[in-house]
């Protein structure tokens, strides 16, 4: 497979490279304007960039602004924290978007969007014009929601690891360094936040690790929500049967402050909790550039969009996708959902730029797998149909659902899902 990819990449460079600056975007100067500029190379933005190219039969030029040279996946990153996968397993370079799809990758950050002039300014100083802007900046941590957390996070003492990357590896190291008999505590913010089942999968992964390596240790879930937010009955049954006495769930625990020195979390109404490894998640909002650009016009926190096209209700020709969007009913903030957004926005933008009718009935799907140990998996799936009369996506009655019980077959499918969605987003 590796050899074939290499041959394909070489072929692609040979045929297309001479026509444009494909293949050397990091060294070649950026164009002064592109028909489509995409901000953020996550599940949403990378998919949108690739699919604008594909669905336009490679007619529409796309610049993807993303500072990193590789994509690191949040899905499966909890298995790195649990110790059954490595950082390498969840990392995919962006090269193929260039070599196979002709996406120009600007390794930079956008510092300003000028909606009037239809330009973005990059941190490196370059100004880039667009006809259509697709903004996919993920989530930002609302540090102010928990006193002391910003500094504790910056010093590396209390991590989030809610954007996969160096913090994922750092949290793993903290767990490895923790003595047997220690306590790991994860504080969960009020919904909505990125990846509803993520905290419970992570707690399960840590418990799975402790059970093998540090059996006297404890896992605490300190949840601002009253109950487990996603796949609740499945998680709770598995915990009771497999992690009894080790993993404890405490609802209605809204964290309001941390003390990094004493490793303590303070809550709105409950007693303080001390832990050896603290993993405290604050409230989350739309990504920084969306917040700074006036796109977060839903309570100043999320972005309202016209769901048929994902065009911002605050700015013409600016489309927002992924976790930053104010979710339609029952629409999760997940990688799979962001990938689905990426395709709907790509088709809409291609239609608009090509004088075609926009799809009147876009469809979104979501399948989200959670590992309860290193092999067994549960899923939640849903289908979301755009309903023109109500101008929103609604789950189709009777569709969707969860696993009947954790099972190994879905463990295999979950890893295949990951390989395929990484390829669909990036290769």
């Amino acid at each position: 497979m590796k050899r074939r990819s290499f041959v394909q990449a070489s072929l692609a460079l040979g045929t297309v490279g001479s026509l444009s600056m494909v293949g050397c975007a990091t060294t070649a100067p950026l164009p002064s304007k592109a028909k489509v500029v995409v901000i953020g190379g996550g599940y949403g933005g990378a998919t949108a960039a690739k699919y604008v190219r594909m669905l336009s039969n490679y007619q529409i030029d796309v610049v993807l602004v993303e500072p990193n040279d590789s994509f690191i996946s949040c899905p499966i990153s909890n298995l790195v924290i649990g110790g059954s996968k490595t950082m390498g397993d969840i990392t995919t370079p962006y090269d193929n978007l260039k070599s196979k799809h002709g996406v120009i990758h600007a390794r930079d950050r956008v510092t300003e969007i000028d909606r009037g002039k239809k330009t973005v300014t990059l941190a490196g100083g370059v100004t880039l014009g667009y006809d259509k802007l697709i903004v996919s900046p993920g989530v930002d941590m609302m540090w102010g929601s928990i006193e002391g957390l910003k500094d504790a996070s910056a010093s590396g003492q209390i991590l989030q690891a809610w954007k996969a990357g160096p913090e994922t590896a750092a949290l793993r190291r903290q767990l490895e360094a923790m003595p047997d008999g220690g306590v790991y505590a994860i504080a969960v913010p009020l919904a909505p936040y990125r990846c509803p089942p993520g905290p419970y999968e992570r707690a399960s992964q840590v418990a799975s690790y402790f059970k093998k390596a540090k059996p006297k240790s404890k896992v605490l879930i300190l949840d601002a929500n009253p109950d487990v937010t996603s796949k609740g009955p499945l998680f709770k049954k598995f915990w009771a049967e497999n992690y009894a006495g080790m993993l404890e769930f405490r609802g209605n625990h809204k964290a309001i402050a941390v003390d990094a020195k004493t490793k303590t979390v303070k809550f709105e109404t409950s007693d303080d909790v001390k832990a050896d490894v603290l993993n405290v998640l604050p409230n989350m909002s739309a990504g920084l550039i969306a917040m700074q650009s006036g796109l977060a016009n839903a309570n100043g926190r999320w972005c309202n969009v016209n769901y048929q096209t994902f065009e911002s209700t605050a700015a013409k020709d600016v489309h927002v996708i992924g976790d930053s969007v104010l979710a339609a009913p029952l629409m999760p903030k997940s990688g799979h959902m962001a990938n689905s957004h990426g395709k709907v926005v790509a088709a809409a933008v291609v239609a608009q730029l090509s004088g075609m009718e926009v799809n009147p009935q876009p469809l979104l799907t979501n399948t989200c797998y959670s590992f309860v140990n290193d092999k067994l998996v549960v899923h939640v799936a849903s289908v979301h149909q755009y309903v023109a009369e109500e101008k929103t996506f609604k789950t189709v009655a009777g569709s969707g659902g969860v696993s009947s019980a954790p099972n190994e077959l879905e463990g295999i499918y979950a890893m295949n899902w990951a390989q395929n969605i990484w390829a669909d987003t990036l290769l």
Partner: protein
Amino acid sequence: MRSTPFLAALLLLGSYAGSATAATPQDTVKLHQRALAATCANCHGTEGRTTEGSAIPSLAGMPREYMVAQMKAFREGTRPATVMHQLTKGLTDQQIETVSTYFSTLKR
């Protein structure tokens, strides 16, 4: 196999570069069809081609009638599944036929 889009792109560059407004009604139908089929790609691979060694099957080149029948069997519960019985319940007959037609036209 994967270089096909590039050949197509090169041909198209010659024919309608710079005439983006000259889309035909067939182009629109094709775009919407591809966008609907793309909802399968998250698990079944871009253009229905999964990564090597995937237990999730590729859809590219699957015979149309076979795929329609499997999707309906998932939906009716006559073919057991982990996820597909829940996803197919969210699709209309027409959506099933559209994606099945599309994937049947693609090379494996």
